[in-house]
């Protein structure tokens, strides 16, 4: 088969604050006509930079050096001039970005944005726009033309981006993590759409992703990237059946181990009765208008017994995080919840403070949840200063050292600052901060979704180990069914603030009752 795009010995180096970073090292791969090539790797492995270099959206300057060649139609894209690039970009090679929220201009309507892609001489734009929107599966395309990006959902925006990308029937479509920012059910739809369009128009597709489930489904060939190097490339089936490189094996085997089911239905640790969360939408200061209030959580009741894990699944906006924040009283809520039969929902901040020791939370983004100006020692020991004021400095140091070892870090790391750590290590620090108070219940609000696959499974392993050792109870919130499956005993499926399904894990996975749960399971590529 003839190669459509051939990349040889691509090298990209950044210079930043006097440090030289080899983002891409000696990468060579080719994309044949009509083929779907996937580049897989963890964040920071140089996937996106490669794509940007092909499109020449980054160029060599004093701090950035690109060398090697990307041959398309006998021309090296990396040193062709701006004019010939203009004839290639958007016409022969087009690109879809990760974040549909920011890749559309909020000030122009859909028609204007799609029309922008057409060649100037092309007439009858409107009909073509409608055709394209139909092609990418947008309902009522005639009406949508005059809409602005904020009137569309994330999935619809990504569809519009795809419509713009295929407007000129390109030979190659580069999709840079096209589904990462979307919910699971929509992820599947978008991927199916890309696959369909690729076959229909005989396009080549360069898919950049970190999700192996996606790769397994639609890619023909896979390149595995690690730290800027392509360590292995092969046919899709061979990569998964006979991985050669150790890193590929690590990626494929990074599925987390599953929790052993513990049968001790004795003590109910937390019981929630009719919990509701409202987000006030006050339009006027003087006239109260409660009709505008948005009810994020609607009358939810559930119990958790000691030592078990409750997994809460749902799409974004389904009220998962609102439950978490309401339970530790970071946001106001209605209804009652009882911690060990004590009603804690109506306590004020001062009376609730002793309970904070027992209920801790771990947030999603380890980069945002650690104060950049404090050392790890200060961060981890902060809770002790609140709840165990009688402790001396040496005792605090001893406790933090112990806990930092428990989460798999070195005690020499205590004097460092968060920015010196990787995402996984930061999340370990966040876990240590929660654990130092010896809580009984930990609420985990998507603790792994900002992390890479291999790190995700390490964190899950750590959480399971800690749960066994310290007899913790978890409320685990995630949209990732794979991790929920590994960790949970019971699963609660949520949609627009309501519990759709709530049962033992086994029953939910084997015999889902509701159609929505079925859809979720189907789109999770388990």
């Amino acid at each position, binding site marked *: 088969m003839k190669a459509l795009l051939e990349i040889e010995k691509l090298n990209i180096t950044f210079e930043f*604050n006097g440090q030289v970073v080899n983002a891409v090292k000696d990468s060579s791969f080719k994309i044949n006509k009509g083929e779907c090539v996937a580049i897989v790797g963890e964040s920071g492995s140089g996937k996106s930079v490669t794509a940007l270099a092909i499109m020449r959206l980054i160029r060599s300057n004093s701090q950035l050096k690109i060398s090697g060649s990307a041959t398309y139609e006998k021309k090296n894209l990396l040193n062709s001039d701006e004019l010939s690039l203009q004839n290639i970009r958007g016409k022969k090679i087009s690109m879809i970005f990760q974040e549909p929220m920011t890749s559309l201009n909020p000030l122009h309507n859909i028609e204007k944005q799609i029309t922008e892609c057409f060649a100037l001489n092309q007439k009858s734009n409107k009909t073509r726009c409608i055709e394209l929107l139909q092609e990418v599966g947008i309902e009522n395309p005639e009406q949508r033309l005059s809409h602005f990006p904020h009137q569309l959902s994330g999935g619809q925006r990504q569809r519009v981006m795809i419509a713009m990308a295929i407007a000129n029937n390109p030979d190659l479509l580069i999709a840079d993590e096209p589904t990462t920012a979307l919910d699971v059910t929509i992820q599947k739809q978008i991927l199916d759409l890309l696959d369909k369009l690729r076959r229909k128009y005989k396009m080549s597709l360069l898919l950049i992703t970190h999700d192996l489930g996606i790769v397994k489904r639609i890619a023909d060939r896979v390149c595995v990237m690690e730290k800027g190097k392509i360590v292995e490339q092969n046919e899709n089936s061979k990569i998964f059946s006979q991985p050669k490189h150790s890193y590929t094996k690590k990626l494929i085997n990074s599925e987390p181990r599953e929790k052993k089911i513990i049968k001790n239905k004795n003590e109910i640790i937390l019981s929630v009765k009719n919990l509701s969360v409202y987000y006030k939408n006050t339009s006027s*200061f003087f006239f109260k208008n409660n009709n505008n209030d948005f009810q994020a959580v609607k009358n939810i009741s559930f119990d958790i017994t000691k030592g078990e894990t409750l997994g809460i699944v749902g799409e974004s906006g389904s009220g998962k995080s609102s439950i978490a*924040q309401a339970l*530790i009283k*970071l946001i106001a809520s209605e209804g009652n919840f009882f911690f060990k039969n004590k009603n804690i929902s109506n306590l004020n901040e001062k009376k609730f*403070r002793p309970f*904070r*020791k027992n209920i*801790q*939370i771990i*947030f*999603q*983004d380890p980069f*945002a*949840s*650690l*104060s*950049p*100006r*404090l050392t790890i020692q200060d961060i981890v020991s*902060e*809770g002790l200063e*609140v*709840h165990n004021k009688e402790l001396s400095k040496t005792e605090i140091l001893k406790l933090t050292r112990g806990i930092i070892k428990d989460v798999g870090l070195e005690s020499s790391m205590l004097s460092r*600052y968060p*920015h*010196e750590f990787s995402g996984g290590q930061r999340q370990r620090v*966040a876990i240590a*901060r929660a654990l130092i*108070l010896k809580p009984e219940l930990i609420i985990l609000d998507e603790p792994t979704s900002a992390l890479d696959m291999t790190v995700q499974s390490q964190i899950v392993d750590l959480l399971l180990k800690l749960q066994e050792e310290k007899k913790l109870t978890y409320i685990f919130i995630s949209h990732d069914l794979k991790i929920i499956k590994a960790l949970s005993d019971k699963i609660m499926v949520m949609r627009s603030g309501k519990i759709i399904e709530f049962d033992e894990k086994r029953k939910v996975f084997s015999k889902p009752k509701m159609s929505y749960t079925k859809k979720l399971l189907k789109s999770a590529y388990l």
Partner: protein
Amino acid sequence: MNPSPLTIRRLKNFRANKRGFYSALVFSLLFLISIFAEFIANDKPILVVFNGQMHFPVFEKIPETFYGGEFETEADYKDPYVKNLIDKKGFSVMPLIEYSYDTINYDLKVPSPSPPSFENFLGTDDQGRDVLARLIYGFRISVFFGLILTILSSIIGIFAGGIQGFYGGKIDLFGQRFIEIWSGLPVLYLLIIISSFIQPSFWILLFIMLLFSWMSLEGVVRAEFLRARNFEYVKAAKALGVKNTKLMFKHVLPNAMVATLTLMPFILSGSIATLTSLDFLGFGLPPGSPSLGEMVSQGKANLQAPWLGLSAFITLSLQLSLLVFIGEAVRDAFDPRKVT
């Protein structure tokens, strides 16, 4: 205490802005000189050795009778009679400039304002006072005024902005409305009216200016607090049970400090300019005190003596430009795009 890597990188960035870095050096040098103004421009000697004993007239009042004179008031060291008395039994070391800001040179050969000479390097003003001495003292008083005003208004601004931003809701709403009304008051008219009742001293002037200048910082600090109170690490600390006051100081305030420190040099130069303009109009510091604004107005009144206006102008513009350059360097140092 070892500085965090962030601080080190910020210092590095500050130094990378050469203009700002050298401005900071020059300004600190000038400020240092002006702090020791009494030892540089004074009508009293730095050191008197009399009868084998050392005396420092800058610090102590020594009556003329001590040297064998007739008056019991403090000795006038510019008087040839006193000079003779001292030289008989010892010697005295005069500062570089033998005039203080309020010393009147009675021995002028020409009517005041006299042009620059070896006696008065930058000439004298229309009351026969040495211009250079007045500039040095004037520089000091304006920098001090600016610094004190900036620090106090920053403290009030951060406090008010912090409370509004952190608690939000009704506190914020009423606070904002109050500030809108308060900032509508005409500061200059108020100062003119007050100064017709009382003779404004340094501290009264400072107090009145402070009433209005804190609002310049309040806005940014409030915005930073509003933003930072929803940061995950602030929420995490709250979930740990950390009290609000500690939350504000330990977790939220450092975020607001960046905006504050960036604005500070500009507030400083702004308050110096305000003091100068008040002095120029005659509503500022009490008459006789060394002030750059008063010098500018003298220059305006005596166009035939250009050394007055020119020296005041050069001092002022140098001072304000240095501060603005330093401000730019500070802004660079705290730029989140350069320091992450």
